[in-house]
């Protein structure tokens, strides 16, 4: 009995040892920062003086006096609202790629190619495509006669955010397509065959069979789209640096510039808390709406 107990203790010890490195990293870089953020948001923090307790000063500043914050918040919401567009496009592409055409793997690769490449390079390319004087997009629009002169896409208040959203959709559409493809391939073809025998048209097959069975995948894409709007730092930073007067600032870029350009760590911590709570609420909502475990995705990009 003693030997078994000692072996069990040894085994327990070994298992905890195996867990330690990962646990240590998560504690150090996820859990502690989360709480430290919370604490920081209630302090006046400066690298030179000891911190003082600030009560709700930063939150007041954020909600009542900071117009930029509300602009940034709204931008993030708009970014999220654009996810369905990307998902719908990706769904169309996925359905087409899922057919028996020759070379569909080539198409799949080409569409997906935009995702694993470096976002910084993508940002530089798109920023230059949108260039007012020599950008390709302006050239095409002018050649087609749609406009007379080049539009300064990334310098105008109204067009900057949609332009960035288009670039972001370009980059992420491959990812959506892959997920939707995986979902499409789990639908057994007998369903389609029996529906065809029963006389259902293509469109009706799509509506009644494909769409309902794809719900988990589509919700997963929604969750990814939401997460993307909270973490999409590289593209915005390179393309517009937050845009003409915060027109393209998302919460994460605003937090970065407040913390590391203006060195207002305490206010940025309060922003981060709000950011995190907003994100958490949306993620839990999406989870509930999809009826259970839609899958939490960790995008480390």
């Amino acid at each position: 009995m003693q030997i078994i107990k000692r072996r069990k203790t040894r085994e327990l010890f070994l298992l905890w040892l195996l867990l330690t490195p990962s646990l240590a990293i998560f504690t150090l870089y996820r859990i502690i920062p989360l709480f430290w953020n919370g604490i920081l948001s209630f302090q006046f923090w400066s690298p030179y003086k000891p911190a003082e307790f600030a009560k709700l000063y930063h939150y007041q500043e954020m909600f009542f006096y900071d117009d930029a914050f509300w602009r940034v918040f709204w931008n993030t919401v708009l970014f999220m609202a654009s996810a369905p567009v990307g998902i719908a496009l990706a769904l169309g592409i996925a359905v087409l790629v899922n057919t028996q055409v020759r070379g569909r793997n080539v198409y799949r690769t080409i569409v997906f190619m935009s995702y694993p490449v470096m976002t910084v390079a993508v940002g530089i390319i798109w920023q230059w495509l949108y260039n007012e004087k020599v950008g390709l997009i302006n050239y095409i629009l002018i050649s087609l006669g749609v406009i007379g002169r080049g539009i300064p896409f990334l310098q105008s208040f109204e067009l900057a955010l949609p332009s960035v959203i288009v670039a972001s959709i370009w980059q992420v559409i491959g990812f959506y397509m892959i997920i939707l493809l995986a979902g499409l391939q789990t639908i057994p073809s007998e369903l389609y065959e029996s529906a065809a025998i029963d006389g259902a048209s293509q469109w009706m097959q799509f509506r009644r069979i494909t769409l309902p069975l794809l719900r988990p995948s589509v919700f997963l894409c929604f969750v990814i789209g939401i997460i993307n709007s909270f973490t999409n730092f590289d593209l915005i930073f390179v393309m517009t640096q937050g845009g003409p007067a915060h027109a393209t600032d998302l919460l994460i870029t605003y937090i970065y510039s407040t913390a590391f350009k203006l060195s207002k760590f305490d206010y940025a911590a309060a922003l981060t808390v709000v950011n995190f709570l907003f994100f958490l609420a949306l993620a839990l909502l999406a989870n509930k709406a999809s009826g259970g475990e839609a899958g939490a995705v960790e995008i480390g990009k």
Partner: protein
Amino acid sequence: MHRYPHWPIHLILGTVSILMLIPFVWVLKTSLTGENIFSYPPAILPQNPHLYYYVDVWYTIPFFRYLVNSVIVSAMVVAANIVFNAMAGYALSREFLGKRTIIMLFLSCMMIPFQVTIIPAYLITKQLGLLNSHLGMALPVCSTIVCIFVFKASFDAVPSSLVDAARIDGLSDWGIILKIMLPLSTSAVATNVILAFIWSWNNFLWPLIIIRDQDMQTLPLGLSRFLTVVEGTTGALYAFCVMVLLPGLVIFLLAQKEFIAGLTKGAAKG
């Protein structure tokens, strides 16, 4: 399902493919000819292509240094990820007291995106004295929960009869991991390698925060700094873009299947 014409599908998919490829083709063309930076209208076919912008990039930017930094950090991250995640995945596939708590803990950590932690992570890295260092860049991403669960699922799938037989033969726990579990989980290892590599290779925000020295910069950082210096006045910027895109594309094209499998597995938790 078999009798519809294929050509409209090819037409649509072909158009989509062209749209998706335009940015790549455009940047390649400009890096070779330097047109379209000042001249207008932009030409479609390259005239007078030359490789001299690549020479400019090589000599005016410490490209090799940035490449080496990126490689070092990525290698550290991938190695640490495989080791730590496999260990944690194995531990989670055994039964022990407190396992449920640990799993709940991990799941809740998954809800904390990296971007939320940047300020305290910066302060912590500063306290540890790891600013401006490879280790500092690698440390926060040395373990990811998604990959732990991938390993756990893979290890759970190993039939316990195999493990029991090995135990009876006297194999220690380490032996079990190394000799039985890992060889049967090559796809989990491949997923881990791919995901960890891509995340750390493309990681921009974290090095941006903690790196101040110019020669510790990684490729994304070097590229964005070059952009602010040159601001699109020279084809060398686009040559730099191409040189930076190439490794990612090459690796992606080589490891496509593992890549796609890894992303779908990682996205649909566990």
